[in-house]
């Protein structure tokens, strides 16, 4: 495996509230290699977006990193002052969010926003930056880039806007892109185009992507490895094929079974009873134990860490050896 570009170690994100501290992300560790696509899946509230936001330093207060470390190419980035982080964000880490309309400033033309970002991070002249911006728009597949560069965000359709956001994210060749639900707001036919675009960029520029989504189909097509999150922790992590076909953790197994598939129309979908606990009500032991069909005594008292489960690593006592 190539050297790790991003290392997240024992990350813990807390929200202090009047009724005590809520732990939204608890002891999460993973790595992303150069040019790798790591998919992060999980239900709403599992902590996947928070993890992404913590990496780019956009955690909304009162949320804060309470423990752990985030390293980019070996350099710690989670404790940098705001201005330092601002230079890394955009230059080394790009971001693509779910809703392209909120990531773009409606008062500036698309070209203006691209030129500003390019000039913030490089020493190009305004003319050079504009030429680069046109190239970028063409690269992300916007027809008539020379003309479209002076248009405003509202003049673009949803799919085209998301392309502009991707152009913004890649404009200074970052080494890592955090893509948080980049296709969720788009129609399926447009979704396919955006996924193809992300894959191509990843291949051509060797950019690593952390792809956060709840859509397993998107992960299956794009990711090399996948991390399944549940109640603020990683339940299972491993190569995408193994996690989809032979998930080891009972939660990831149930999750895969609950996805309706186009290729077969079985009468009933597998379902996991109940729902994910609220942050205030995370049970002791394994957080999944009240819903787990294979629960046993140890699960209710002792919290499992990730352990080897064949090809993947799963946080489940079923795979404890000795």
């Amino acid at each position, binding site marked *: 495996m190539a050297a790790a570009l991003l290392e997240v170690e024992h990350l813990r994100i807390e929200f202090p509230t009047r009724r005590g501290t809520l732990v939204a992300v608890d002891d999460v560790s993973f790595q992303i290699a150069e040019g790798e696509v790591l998919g992060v899946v999980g239900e709403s509230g599992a902590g996947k977006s928070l993890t992404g936001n913590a990496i780019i330093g956009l955690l909304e207060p009162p949320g804060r990193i309470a423990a752990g470390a985030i390293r980019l190419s070996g350099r710690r980035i989670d404790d940098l002052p705001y201005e330092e982080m601002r230079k890394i964000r955009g230059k080394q880490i790009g971001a693509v969010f779910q809703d392209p309309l909120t990531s773009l400033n409606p008062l500036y033309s698309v070209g203006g926003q691209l030129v500003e970002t390019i000039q913030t991070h490089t020493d190009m002249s305004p003319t050079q930056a504009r030429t680069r911006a046109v190239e970028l728009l063409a690269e992300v597949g916007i027809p008539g880039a020379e003309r479209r560069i002076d248009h405003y965000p509202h003049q673009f359709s949803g799919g085209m806007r998301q392309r502009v956001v991707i152009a913004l994210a890649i404009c200074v060749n970052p080494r890592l892109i955090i893509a948080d639900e980049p296709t969720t707001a788009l129609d399926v036919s447009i979704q396919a185009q955006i996924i*193809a675009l992300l894959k191509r960029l990843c291949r051509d520029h060797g950019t690593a992507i952390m792809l956060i989504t709840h859509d397993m189909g998107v992960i299956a097509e794009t990711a090399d490895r996948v991390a399944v999150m549940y109640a603020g922790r990683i339940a299972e992590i491993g190569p995408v094929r193994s996690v989809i076909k032979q998930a080891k953790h009972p939660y990831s197994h149930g999750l895969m079974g609950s996805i309706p598939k186009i290729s077969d129309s079985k009468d009933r979908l597998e379902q996991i009873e109940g729902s994910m606990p609220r942050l205030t009500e995370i049970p002791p032991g394994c957080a999944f134990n009240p819903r787990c069909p294979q629960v046993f005594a140890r699960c209710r008292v002792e919290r499992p860490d990730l352990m080897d489960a064949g090809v993947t690593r799963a946080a489940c006592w079923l795979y404890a050896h000795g």
Partner: protein
Amino acid sequence: MAEMNAPLVKVVGLSRYFDVSAPWLNRVLEGQPRLILRAVDGLDFEINRGETLALVGESGCGKSTVARLVVGLYRPTAGSIVFDGVDMAGLGGRAEMAPIRRRLQMIFQDPFASLNPRWRVSAIVSEPIRAFGLIEDEAAIVERVGQLLRQVGLSPVDGEKYPHEFSGGQRQRISIARALSSQPEFLVSDEPTSALDVSVQAQILNLMKDLQRQLGLTYLFISHNLAVVRHIADRVGVMYLGRLAEVGPAETLFTLPRHPYTRMLLDTIPDLEMTGRQRTPVAGEVPNPINPPTGCAFHPRCPFANDRCRRERPEPKPTETGSAVACHAVEEGRLPAGPLPAAA
């Protein structure tokens, strides 16, 4: 009452246009024309008793407008909706609609917006019972609400709570309980699971299937998710810009799609079974419905379009596979059934 084997719902030439013109003053001063959005334009379909018809399509294709037309939230611009032998467009005021209204109910997409946050769940669920005067006795209403909550997998004590105390999936269960409380025969659901996580979606889809079997319900199911539709529908209609491109039995439509748009949609679905498969990304986007293309609305994105497609609008024609397809290429035999030939 009509005979039992007639379709429960029969829609003929259903259209709904919206006037999206600029205000009168702007039209006069700036010489802007009137703009008419044809959200639904001449739709025909039938839904048999006890079956599920699903309508799929991309945003803006008019599928939600159809749902609202069928339950009577919009009045059609043209065409008729015949529910169990009664043309709903011909009915006058509230009083005439009421007996029909009880028999059809709707489940909405957003379980956060469709429940009144100030009402207890018991009040929400019993509202249709009271509105239609189905049960007079207060104790019997409480009994009935408890039974409905149990039926959707909640507990009768949940009736004392407020909607904010429930998760998205549980709220959707409350919406279903409310819809069932008037003992309807026909449920229209507009994207009932698209705001939910997949594991919760599975619970709701299974619940809807169980209820259909137990109560003999008929469903009109609106969704953009083809995999969900595959799971729940008996028949599927694919909509594009206010018209049906293809309608047919679910099995046929998914295994032998005929219309190029249906094939394109099926081709774009990320499939878990084909990890690493290269999809053929589809070029283009849905055109602006205010100014749809001439002829077949799909022709600018269709690899098989010719002059006739650009000129003449295709009407749905039955095919040998039991579906109806609105496509000149299919009708002329230019486009054989089976997998999509590689486009040039």
